[in-house]
């Protein structure tokens, strides 16, 4: 970088000028990060929270427990491959799994907009029951509120969950080590594009379905196989890129991945190309990354491939020493560049 020749501006720290919460604050990108760093973390700071992992790892009466929560505001409520209910159940199940825990019990809270057809509610709840059964969890407590018509997007669902941690060592970004291999459980971008396919103004015809699914089974298998899993993270909004950037920043290590190794299904790519979206940032709901020592990578892939949800798991890169905590991507033509968080949500473009 060349030295600027005009007088330098005084403050090097970016100042957030937002006085109101924007949609982008929920996008999982830089703006969400700002909200976390400026408002939530300073207020609630404690060891569990500061670990900044998907769920909290807690010690209660000698038992190591994982505890997590997630809220769903997705529109459209129903999309190819799932609905807000399946997302709500699997979202929390997966967050718990990412702590190396066996998910067992869930709570759920519904905020319903007046006027929502009862039939819609029935369908969502039926899906949640199926998803819970498939994930081996029980919904044991809940709450319902109704808000005025016009004050909600039809339905908001929150779930919280608890499970016993089965991993002997802490599974968190702080456990990642230089030399670790980064594994990805499957192809990316399905959920985001499935939802996009149904959006007015952007709709297209395809067979893309959300990859929404529970991933606890392959994860617990990895632990049972005695593998030294350092970190797990499920990919949600913000995609693969955002998940890796968070881990790199928290662990203060360099994550190097290769574009040629990252699987994207052809039709998902087609949809991304038309709308000008980068699959690296598109939402997923049934995919996760695993950090294991190099010596265990092959066995880990074997374990993962025995499960349908991670049948096509692949190695996509490795961890190296570099306290700047960056994520870099080697492009298809062999040049390496930085992968950063997006500013807000990724928007379709024509330019």
């Amino acid at each position, binding site marked *: *970088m*060349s030295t*600027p020749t*005009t*007088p*330098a*501006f005084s*403050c*090097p*720290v*970016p*100042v*957030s*000028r937002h006085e*109101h*919460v*924007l*949609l*982008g604050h929920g996008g999982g990108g*830089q*703006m969400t990060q*700002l909200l976390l760093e400026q408002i939530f973390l300073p207020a609630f700071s404690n060891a569990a929270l500061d670990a900044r992992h998907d769920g909290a790892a807690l010690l209660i009466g000698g038992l190591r427990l994982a505890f997590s929560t997630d809220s769903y505001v997705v529109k459209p409520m129903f999309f190819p491959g799932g609905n807000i209910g399946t997302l709500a159940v699997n979202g929390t199940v997966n967050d718990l799994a990412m702590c190396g825990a066996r998910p067992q019990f869930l709570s759920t809270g519904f905020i319903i907009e007046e006027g929502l057809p009862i039939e819609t509610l029935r369908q969502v709840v039926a899906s949640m029951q199926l998803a819970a059964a498939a994930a081996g969890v029980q919904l044991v407590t809940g709450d319902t509120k109704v808000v005025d018509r016009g004050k909600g997007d039809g339905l908001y669902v929150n779930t919280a969950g608890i499970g016993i941690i089965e991993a002997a060592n802490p599974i968190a970004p702080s456990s990642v080590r230089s030399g670790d291999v980064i594994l990805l459980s499957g192809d990316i971008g399905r959920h985001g594009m499935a939802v996009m396919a149904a959006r*007015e*103004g*952007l709709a297209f015809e395809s067979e893309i379905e959300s990859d929404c699914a529970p991933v606890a089974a392959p994860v617990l298998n990895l632990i049972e196989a005695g593998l030294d899993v350092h970190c797990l993270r499920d990919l949600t909004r913000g995609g693969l890129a955002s998940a890796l950037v968070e881990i790199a920043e928290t662990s203060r290590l360099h994550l*190097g991945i290769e574009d*040629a190794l990252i699987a994207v299904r*052809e039709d998902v*790519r*087609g949809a991304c*190309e*038309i*709308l*000008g979206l980068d699959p690296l940032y598109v939402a997923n709901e049934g995919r996760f990354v695993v950090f294991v020592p190099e010596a265990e990578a092959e066995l880990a892939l074997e374990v993962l491939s025995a499960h349908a949800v991670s049948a096509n798991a692949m190695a996509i890169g490795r961890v190296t020493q570099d306290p*700047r905590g*960056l994520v*870099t991507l*080697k*492009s*298809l*033509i*062999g*040049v*390496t*560049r*930085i992968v*950063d968080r997006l*500013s*807000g949500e990724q*928007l*379709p*473009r*024509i*330019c």
Partner: protein
Amino acid sequence: MKFIDEYRDGNAARQYADAVRRIITRPWTLMEVCGGQTHAIVKFGIDELLPKEVTLVHGPGCPVCVTPLEQIDKALLVSSWPGVIFTSFGDMLRVPGSHTDLLTKKAGGADVRIVYSPLDALKIARDNPGKQVVFFAVGFETTAPANAMAVFQAAQEGLENFSILVSHVLVPPAMEAILGAKGNLVQGFLAAGHVCTVMGYTEYEPLAAKYQVPIVVTGFEPLDILQGVYMAVKQLEEGRHEVENQYARAVRRDGNLPAQHVIKEVFEVVPRKWRGVGEIPHSGLGLREAYRNFDAEIRFGLGDMHVDEPPECLSGLVMQGRLKPNECPAFGSMCTPEHPLGATMVSSEGACAAYYRYRRIAVEQDSVRS
């Protein structure tokens, strides 16, 4: 994907880069005039593959970046009105106006919707007869046929609740403005391939002759850009200044005649202001008399706004290729993608945003050869 994947082949890319290395004997500065090309260059790292004698500068090729502050402010004004559904391509949502942007307006309750095509905006108009639907018609010549057709169809149907806010710009006048400017460093151009699918490339022949610069019509995939660079460098080394067509699989010399016909039917050439550059005569498109009832500026009485741009924003110099994004004092500090000062930082194609996302910290590990 056919006609995309083949052009992203790493081996072929390196071969082209090597070919440039073999023929180049001195430094040359080339400008690409299309945001899509800027994006590809930075995303794939094409400029890092090329020998350092080649300097690629990014021109005002992003219609998002060059849309003047006034037009954004007009869009913001219209979008706030009750009974208006404001439709736009996604690119425009985050571009800062004088005080705010469309995304913020949307958060504040305005009915702002992203569409993929102007035809989607037409459909929204048909489905919502009680509302006024305004479409933000931004773009280069590539998008003009689509926007023209939307207006044409609206006229045929007698659709009364549809109008467009026009901010169309033309490429050749911008290129001429850059070439004619004092202190111009650009020695060759990679012309925007998709603009040329519509307009052809006969308009560039007088430019190449007058300013003695090679102009190569270039596509958007890595191999296209590398071949375009190779062809431009070859011309420069051989002392030629012709118009060549690298993107022949999509571009014909005369362009797309039916598309040009509809553009001429609906639009006429007008002077346009380019953000960061100023007004360039004959550089824009506006609705013809017969279609002016579809002009949102007239329908909503948006009048003549004049707005000054923040003095710290040097995006004008960046767009003219005279400043690299990381040479701007505000880059990365006062001006970042979260709070951009100018459009070049907002648009994902903008040179500043591209640099910020991919380049702001030098990456020491260089794995060009593998």
